[in-house]
Every structure is written in C-alpha cells, then in structure tokens.
C-alpha cells in the first residue's frame, strides 16, 4: 500500500496509521467540533432531511451524535454509539423519521468530516492518505452501526404494533347464554395460538360457556405447531366442560391437518360460521332440552 517517509520508523503502514494518526485525527475533530457540527446541520437542512424535527432539536442531537461519533473513532468501540443510536431511534421513530434519513445524515457527517480533512491536510498528500486510511473504515463502520441500530429499533416498534393489532383482532363474543364465539382474523402463529387458547379458556370460565365456536375463516394457513396447539386447545376446552366447534377451515388448512395426522375425530368442524352456530345451538339444546331449570 502506502510506503511513504513521514514516520521515522519503517513500520507497516496500517499499524502506524492506527497507532499515531487516530489520536491526531480525533484531537483535530474535537478541536473543530463546533464548526463541523454547524456545517453538518446546514447540509442536513439543505438535503431536506429530518424535516420532522426543529432546527434546535437537530442541533442538539447533532452534538450528541458528533461526540459519540468521535468517541467511537477514538476507542474503536461502537458499543456506546450503538446504545446511543438505539436511544435516539427510540425517540425519533415516533416522530416519523425514516431509515433513509438516518443513514443520510450519518453519511453527510462522514462527508463533512472527510472534506475538512482534505482541506486541513492539503499540503501533505502522503499524510492525508494515511489519515484517510485510518478514518474511512472507522467511519463506514459507524455508518453501518447507526443504520443497523435504527432498523432494529424500527423492527421492534413494528412488532409491538403488530402485537397490539393481534390482540385487538381476537375479540371474544358472548353470543348468548353458554355460547361464545372467537373469530380469528389474520396470521395465526404459535404465539398468537397460545394467546388464543388462554382467551378461549378464560372465556369458557368467565361465561360458563358450554360451547365455543372458533372461527378461522380469516386464517389462510397454519403450521404443525399451531395445528397441534389447536388440538390441545379443543381438548383443554373439553376438560373444562365445553365443546369446541371450529368453523371456516379452508381446504388448505383441512389438508394440512390431515397431512399432519391430526385426529379430526376429536374435533368438531363445520364449513362456515353460520353452520357452526347452528351446530352450537343443537349442542346446547341437547343438555338443557325441555327442562327449564336444572334440579338442585
């Protein structure tokens, strides 16, 4: 790579650049910090990024990011930067800041610093090269770190929102005395199936339900785990004294169950919800029949 004369000792260039140049670089960045941050903020607003934030907010975050950035360059450790990035993401995601904006501003900072290095070391190209050798990989690593942290945080938020939606989308309807209906809409994964079971059994207990209709018309497919779960749920409902009727099985799901060797004999299944409700009424009539009240 570069074998220039500046350093007195003929040591490999990377070692020398990391060893003696980073501190110099870091010191320079700290010294020029205020000015470089302002430049950076200007570039951010010019590029129409972070429009969801006010200039004061941007400047305040800019300072924190800059300090963390320089510290990351200095120590070679991105841990602190990661932690900060996640915290920052947590705060700005609800404000509607997007991934491309976050990456954009980090890259702008990288560019602002790089350009200032060009200017500062313009009389010493050899040294500039080595400074850049030290700076570039570190700066890129930082960009990746911040980007990844932001994305992870976004994913977390999205998962939380999905969770909330899931919970809302499984209402428990007490249709009439002793009969409860649970319509499931959307994806039925293992976790949701577990939630479903608890809701179903809780409903049986709370409503003294004798029949539960579980409508899965809105569910496209299920996997082995969920299928087994459904079987267990039906059994658990039975142990609590309620018959479970599953309605709305698509032919695809029915096939899955057959392929999995699920004992459909134990499960009451009916094509559609309407049919399921009728079957439920029949079941209820059986026990209570003509007797107006149970003898006690």
């Amino acid at each position, binding site marked *: 790579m570069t074998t220039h004369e500046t350093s007195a000792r003929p040591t490999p260039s990377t070692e020398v650049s990391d060893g003696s140049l980073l501190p110099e670089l870091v010191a320079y960045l700290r010294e020029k910090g205020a000015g470089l941050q302002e430049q950076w903020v200007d570039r951010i607003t010019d590029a129409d990024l972070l429009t969801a934030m006010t200039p004061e907010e941007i400047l305040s975050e800019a300072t924190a990011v800059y300090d963390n950035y320089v510290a990351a360059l200095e120590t070679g450790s991105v841990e602190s930067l990661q932690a900060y990035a996640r915290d920052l993401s947590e705060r700005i995601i609800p404000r509607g800041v997007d991934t491309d904006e976050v990456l954009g501003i980090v890259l702008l900072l990288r560019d602002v610093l790089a350009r200032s290095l060009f200017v500062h070391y313009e009389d010493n190209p050899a040294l500039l090269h080595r400074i850049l050798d030290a700076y570039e990989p570190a700066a890129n690593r930082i960009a990746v770190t911040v980007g990844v942290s932001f994305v992870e945080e976004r994913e977390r938020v999205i998962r939380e929102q999905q969770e909330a939606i899931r919970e809302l989308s499984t209402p428990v309807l007490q249709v009439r005395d002793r009969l409860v209906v649970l319509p499931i809409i959307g994806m039925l994964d293992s976790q949701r199936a577990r939630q479903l079971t608890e809701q179903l059994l*809780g409903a*049986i207990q709370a409503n*003294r339900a004798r029949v539960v209709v579980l409508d899965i018309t809105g569910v496209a497919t299920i996997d082995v785990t969920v299928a087994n779960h459904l079987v267990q*749920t039906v059994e*658990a409902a039975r142990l609590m004294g309620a018959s479970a009727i599953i309605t709305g099985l698509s032919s695809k799901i029915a096939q899955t169950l057959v392929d999995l060797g699920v004992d459909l004999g134990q499960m009451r299944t009916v094509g559609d919800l309407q049919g399921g409700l009728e079957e439920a009424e029949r079941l209820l009539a*059986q026990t209570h029949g003509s*007797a107006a009240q149970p003898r006690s």
Partner: protein
Amino acid sequence: MAVALLRQGDALIAAIQSDLTDSQVLRLRDDLTDQVGLHRLRSIIIDVSALDVIDSFVARALRAMAISARLRGAETLVVGIQPDVAIAMAHFDLNLEPLRTATDLDEALAVLTRLPGERGGDG
C-alpha cells in the same frame, strides 16, 4: 379434611379442598367407589377447582373412579378444572372415558338430569 363430601339424593358431591398426596388420591378413589355401592348412587361429582396441578397420575385415578362407578351404575363428572390445568392435561393426551366434565356444579347437575341415551358436554 382434604375432601368434603356431600350427598344429595342419589348424587354425591366431593369437593377437593387442597392439593392431595398420591395416597390421599387413592383413598378418595376407594371411598367414592364404596359410597356408590353403599348408597346406590347414580352420580358422583368431583370438584377440583382448588387443584393447581392435576398430573397424569391424578387424571388416571379420576378415570379409574369413573370406570368403577360406571360398573356400579353411577356416572362421574369432574367440575372446575382450571384453564391452565386443562392445558397441562391436554399435553398428556389421555383418554379419560367414561369420565365427563362440566364447567361448574349447576352444569354438572343439568348434564346428569338430561334424558338418558344422549351424549352431552364433550367431544
């Protein structure tokens, strides 16, 4: 007393008050079987709502009770299995016939007074 017994006509209600040891479970099984013969009972209702754990041994003992009772002409119903206990029991995948279950006491009595020859309350 770990189990409270109450006879109502030709029905016997056994309310389990607390967690039972295996010996107590076996004693209960034998006592109930004896009671059926002694009083020509037609039904036994076992209330297990106080049990936090029903493992395979207890489940099988309950089933054994139902079989002996049936042989002597009585139906056995278990009421009050808690949701989490029901889920645990579902893992065993045991056949508990002819044991029946009901959500609560009222329901149990309703099931028992239904017309003979009809299946109710299970899958």
